[in-house]
């Protein structure tokens, strides 16, 4: 007898705010709030929870949260080893494996992020303000493999993700004629979706293509509105067995399949690796993973009713559309121009919450939350009769993905 398939039965989040705006509550308290709300949404109690999983080196370690939230026992604690947002769907997948193998019964996946209370991604500890006494430039000791790898990026000023992911996006434009306006349309589409979402940080701020084209250049081709938000907030999803999912508060969402990882020789992707194979360079790196996901579920891109694609930068969304086979390689620009991603009239409504570009940047776990809502009929941009949702976590770095199905 095969083990029961895992289901997502609860979702929850704190309020989302702009970077640095949540200071009165600790990042750690936000994690507890999101976990409690997700558990309550499922109709479960903290007494039912026996596992916790996260990713992106979340500072709020499971062992402490388990004690503080009064878990009867912690039977599964998991941290994914994919960089940053690449681990979101992987954390859900690992939680699913835990409940499918009986390691735990109810696992909550969480991510809490208040960069304003710590440091800001992409700063590398470097300030634009003049230091009192600039140190004599010298070779430093790398304290990890990642840092040794960053040693081949940082001395050239490559710290900002906006610059790192501009490199494959620029190459895509060169190879296929992709334009800044096509990237801008993604941002405009997701902002329109956010306009109906009261949780969205940018919900009340309409965006036109003209606004996009007039926005300051950060690292070309990335303009300001090609870059995701920097946010404070936390969210969580509850994963349990099929059997347990049957009698809970909300319609369960089945995890039809999941994948995580990276192709051969990928390392950290174009951020620090100039030598990923030429055929992979101007892609999101997810094509092999996507192929495995379709094969294991027996589904195809045509079966996907709604998608929540990790949108750290518009170019990375564009390349994912090709990786996952929604259009041919090089044709995502035209696919976007066709209006395919729009909630209204699109063949593949995408980021119905507004995504990281317009709802909030919670390292993409909010995309899993929205994936669940879109299949429950709870999305603020609902897709009628949606049965299959693709959720992705990152691109252009090792990444992960989930196919979710309505029960």
């Amino acid at each position: 007898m095969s083990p029961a398939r895992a289901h997502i039965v609860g979702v929850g989040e704190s309020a989302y705010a702009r970077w640095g705006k949540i200071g009165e509550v600790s990042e750690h308290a936000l994690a507890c709030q999101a976990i409690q709300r997700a558990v309550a949404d499922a109709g479960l109690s903290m007494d039912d929870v026996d596992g916790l999983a996260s990713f992106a080196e979340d500072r709020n370690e499971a062992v402490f949260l388990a004690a503080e939230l009064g878990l009867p026992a912690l039977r599964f604690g998991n941290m994914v080893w994919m960089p940053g947002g690449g681990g979101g769907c992987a954390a859900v997948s690992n939680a699913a494996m835990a409940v499918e193998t009986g390691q735990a019964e109810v696992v909550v996946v969480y991510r809490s992020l208040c960069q304003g209370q710590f440091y800001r991604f992409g700063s590398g500890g470097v300030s634009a303000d003049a230091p009192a006494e600039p140190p004599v430039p010298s070779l430093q000791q790398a304290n990890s493999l990642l840092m040794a790898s960053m040693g081949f990026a940082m001395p050239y000023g490559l710290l900002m993700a906006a610059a790192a992911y501009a490199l494959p996006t620029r190459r895509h434009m060169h190879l296929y004629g992709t334009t800044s306006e096509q990237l801008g349309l993604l941002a405009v589409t997701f902002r329109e979706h956010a306009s109906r979402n009261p949780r969205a940080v940018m919900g009340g701020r309409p965006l036109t293509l003209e606004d996009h084209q007039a926005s300051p250049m950060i690292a070309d081709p990335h303009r300001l509105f090609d870059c995701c938000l920097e946010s404070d907030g936390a969210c969580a999803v509850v994963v349990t067995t099929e059997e347990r999912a049957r009698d809970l508060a909300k319609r369960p969402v089945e995890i039809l399949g999941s994948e995580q990882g990276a192709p051969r020789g990928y390392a950290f992707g174009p951020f620090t690796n100039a030598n990923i194979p030429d055929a992979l360079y101007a892609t999101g790196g997810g094509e092999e993973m996507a192929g495995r996901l379709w094969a294991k579920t027996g589904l195809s891109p045509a079966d996907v009713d709604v998608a929540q694609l990790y949108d750290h930068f518009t170019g990375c969304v564009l390349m994912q559309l090709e990786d996952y086979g929604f259009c041919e390689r090089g044709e995502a620009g035209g696919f976007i121009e066709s209006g395919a991603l729009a909630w209204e009239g699109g063949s593949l409504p995408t980021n119905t919450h507004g995504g990281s570009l317009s709802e909030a940047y919670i390292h993409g776990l909010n995309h899993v939350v929205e994936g669940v809502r879109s299949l429950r009929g709870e999305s603020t941009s609902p897709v009628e009769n949606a049965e299959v949702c693709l959720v992705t976590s990152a691109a252009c770095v090792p990444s992960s993905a989930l196919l979710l199905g309505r029960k």
Partner: protein
Amino acid sequence: MSERFFPDTMPPPMADGTSLPWWEAAAEHRLVVQECGACQATRLPPSPVCPDCRSDQFGWREVSGQGEVYTFTRVHRPLGAGQAIPFVIAVIALEGSGGLRMISNVVGIDADAVAIGMRVEVVWEDMSPDLAIPRFRPTDD
């Protein structure tokens, strides 16, 4: 000391024992790639084992420093005080390296004139007596 392109506040490189020889060669203004001692495949950044044949034997091959721009971005945000913007981060395809590329900067040219396919050559920037960083500038042809 060489011509300077970036201020002292530019982030310094970090190395571990595996990548240290690359930086020691750089300090002598030698641009090297790692070469497998068994199958002669080249690789960068340095790593302990050849991903092709899994041999742990290796040496270092000096390359000419000629190359071309594979992709690039113009960064409009300063990373440190005194740094001019925009500056160009580029991936350079290195001639004679066995097909390798490296991340670097294109300097000595207006940022708007940088293009994919542009021919470039290495120019060493001595950030201090012990630290040299390879940047690239357009070749004169």
